[in-house]
């Protein structure tokens, strides 16, 4: 086993690449014909997407009655998926903005990809609140548009906060991502020999010319946007958690929700980024740019946030007992030992137990185990949202109306479809735009900056 010296910071980019090598390595996926493996991946993901599209079309035609929702479980897969996907998105902003503010240089290799993933995940997430209204063609009224009824939206409702939070998050993430892309697009514009690509890159790069007078402002706006994105990302999952916490249902009405949701979001998001990056660095040979050190650092973040999530699970039980509120303690006992105990224990084992393996350096640094743990974390985090939403609703205040939620094939179809949509977008992205920021990786090379005298 190779020993790692933790006292020195490892090089962000390994294998002594030159500036030109970086151009080559990063733009190669865009300039070569895709492999069979690529088409296979695209085929699988678009099949999932198609399944989702059919389930969704049927839902739109016949209504949400096709889903397994009932009285009192009026929220189920739709909201579970929404929270899950928004959470996935949060890792991207954390990597691109928060780690940028903390001057973590290892983020450079994965920031672009993570940001793109944020956008795709938020797009996928945004679908669910829209379809769960049942008549999505009327969703325009979620925004304060002047209308013939002279009615306005209710600004005191957490669901409206959600509309603002998620749409702002999507817009700001997009701007952040696009600003980062402009110099890379300019580089590609200068590289390409194809006429069509040249036109596309010229339009998208806006005629950027790598001027240092521009870079000067550019660095400033990057800082500003990172500064805005940081509180924004925290606010988004806080507001998502308000959807529950502001209600008065036992099991939802707790003050721990905002930090607990944010930690959970980062946790699952990192797992997803790690999973996809492992695949990409393998397929496109980017092992020197997306290094093992980076992956190890991500695993450490997962370990830390996993512990936070575990703490929140424990604390919820403690407060349920300590508050002396019988309804509250009933809900939590019911979670662990009641009708959905199976979901609860899937959640606990995936999120809290398996991640403890990351205490071992060997596991943190070997690809297959960490990939498996990443997948488990995502399963666990999906079930966490399921447990929160469904157990609470299925056992509400009135025992006569208790019911058990069973998903229908349409629920499952739409869930698969959401994965299909996300991965199709990711797979298309990795061949159309540079997955790694050329600019940022170049700027952290060893010889890239002038030595100060």
């Amino acid at each position, binding site marked *: 086993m190779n020993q790692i010296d933790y006292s020195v910071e490892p090089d962000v980019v390994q294998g002594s690449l*030159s*500036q*030109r090598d970086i*151009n080559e390595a990063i733009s190669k996926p865009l300039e070569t014909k895709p492999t069979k493996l690529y088409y296979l991946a695209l085929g699988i993901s678009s099949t999932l997407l198609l399944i989702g599209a059919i389930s969704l079309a049927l839902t*739109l*035609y016949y*209504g949400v009655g096709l889903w397994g929702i009932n009285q009192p479980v009026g929220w189920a897969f739709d909201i579970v998926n929404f929270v899950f996907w928004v959470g996935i998105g949060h890792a991207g902003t954390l990597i691109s903005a928060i780690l940028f503010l903390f001057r973590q240089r290892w983020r450079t290799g994965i920031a672009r990809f993570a940001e793109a993933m944020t956008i795709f995940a938020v797009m996928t997430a945004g679908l669910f609140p829209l379809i769960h209204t049942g008549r999505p*063609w009327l969703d325009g009224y979620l925004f*304060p548009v002047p209308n013939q009824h*002279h*009615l*306005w939206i*209710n*600004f*005191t*409702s957490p669901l*409206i*906060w959600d509309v*603002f939070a998620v749409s*702002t998050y999507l*817009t*700001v993430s997009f*701007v*952040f991502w696009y600003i980062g892309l402009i*110099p890379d697009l*300019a*580089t590609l514009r*200068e*590289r390409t020999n194809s006429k069509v690509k040249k036109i596309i890159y*010229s339009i998208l790069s*806006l*005629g*950027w*010319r*790598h001027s*240092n*007078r*521009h*870079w*000067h*402002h*550019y*660095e*400033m*706006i990057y800082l*500003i*946007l990172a500064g*805005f*994105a940081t*509180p*924004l990302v925290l*606010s988004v999952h806080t507001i998502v958690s308000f959807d529950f916490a502001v209600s008065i249902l036992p099991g939802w009405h707790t003050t721990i929700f905002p930090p607990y949701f944010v930690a959970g979001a980062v946790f699952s998001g990192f797992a997803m980024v790690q999973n996809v990056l492992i695949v990409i660095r393998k397929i496109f040979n980017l092992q020197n740019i997306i290094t093992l050190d980076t992956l190890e650092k991500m695993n450490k973040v997962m370990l830390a946030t996993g512990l936070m999530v575990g703490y929140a699970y424990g604390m919820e039980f403690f407060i349920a007992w300590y508050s002396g509120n019988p309804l509250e303690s009933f809900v939590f006992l019911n979670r662990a030992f009641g009708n959905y105990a199976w979901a609860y224990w899937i959640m606990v084992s995936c999120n809290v137990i398996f991640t403890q393996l990351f205490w071992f350096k060997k596991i943190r640094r070997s690809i297959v185990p960490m990939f498996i743990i990443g997948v488990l974390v995502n399963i666990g985090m999906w079930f966490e949202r399921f447990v929160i939403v469904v157990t609470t609703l299925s056992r509400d205040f009135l025992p006569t109306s208790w019911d058990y939620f069973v998903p229908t094939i349409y629920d499952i179809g739409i869930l698969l479809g959401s994965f299909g949509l996300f991965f199709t977008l990711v797979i298309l992205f990795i061949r159309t735009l540079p997955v790694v920021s*050329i*600019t940022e990786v*170049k700027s952290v090379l060893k*010889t*890239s900056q*002038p*030595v*100060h005298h």
Partner: protein
Amino acid sequence: MDDKNLFGVACLFKDPNKLLPLVKKIRELGFKNWDVHSAYPLHGIPKAMRLKWSPLGYIALIFGLSGASFGLFLTWWTMSVDYPLIIGGKPWFSFPAFVPVLFELTVLLASVGTAIVMLFVIFKLPNNRHPLNDTEYMKKVSSEYYGLVVESKDPNFDYDRIVSIFKEYEPSEILDINYQELELKYQPKVFDWKFILFLVIISAATSAFAYFYNNKVLYLPPFDFMLNQFKLKPQESSTLFSDNFGMRIPVAGTVARGEKFYPFKGKPEEAGTKLVNTLEPSEENLKLGQQKYNTFCSPCHGWRGEGDSRLNGQFPNPPSLHTEKLRNWPDGRIYHVIVEGQNIMPSYARLLSEKERWAIVLYIRALQRSLNAKQEDLQ
């Protein structure tokens, strides 16, 4: 080509450390129109070029503050002025509940606004026609070189002098950057017929789509599921009842809640003498009467009661309501016709409340007076 103009002279370095002294030198010599190009921001260059502190922070502050004030105005005006709603017993202006929206609008405006100002106002992008784009120089700069350009429009520009300065610093390459006059002069024409045709097509397509969507698509399933529900609408027949009427008639001998027993059944003359209209002929009551008259009576009796039925002979035309006889009838007598009907005219008792019947009587009186105005009415 002879229409080539010199944009400037450039030199390229492979090592950023060699570039830095040249940057300092050029700045010290007092050049104005010059620039350094590199594929990523180089540390120390802004200082060496003596670039001013970027104003973007202030711009973000201004946009952020306007986002916050807009949000505050929007939430305050909609929730406590334009359509005040009490939700959860909270005051109309419940600031804490508006904070999330305020925050999001602040961030949204600040980031999008700053980005737009930077790209389109400060950088004056998009600018693909800049002479530097599409040159050998740009190609090299964007891959592994660092470049410096002195533009020919600089007041101190002197080709040979600059080249000799460059040479002192041993660049990998020195090159001229040329552009074509035509390329820069090109201005898109607004009144080009192709462009106008394009606009026309776009607007026609948009309106066609809007028309089609609003008038056709929204009436197709599933969008019309709320419009067509499994329920009986007024005047529809139904096989559920033996008389095939969808609308039901009150059981014989019952009096609806809020209604009084009508004592003058079959005694029109008595009704005429005993019933008195207690309703004030106020504007409000006349409006009510007009509305009810137009709904229930006008199909047969005509908008102004002249007996000009709109039923096109499907039903015998009723007499005019302006006859001598009717004008001399007491109010109670007309009221009685509404309650009981008369010969083939059906009863309207179950469709109109007592107040509405009297309001109709008032309205008929107003109609009568307007068509048979006396001299003194005109004053």
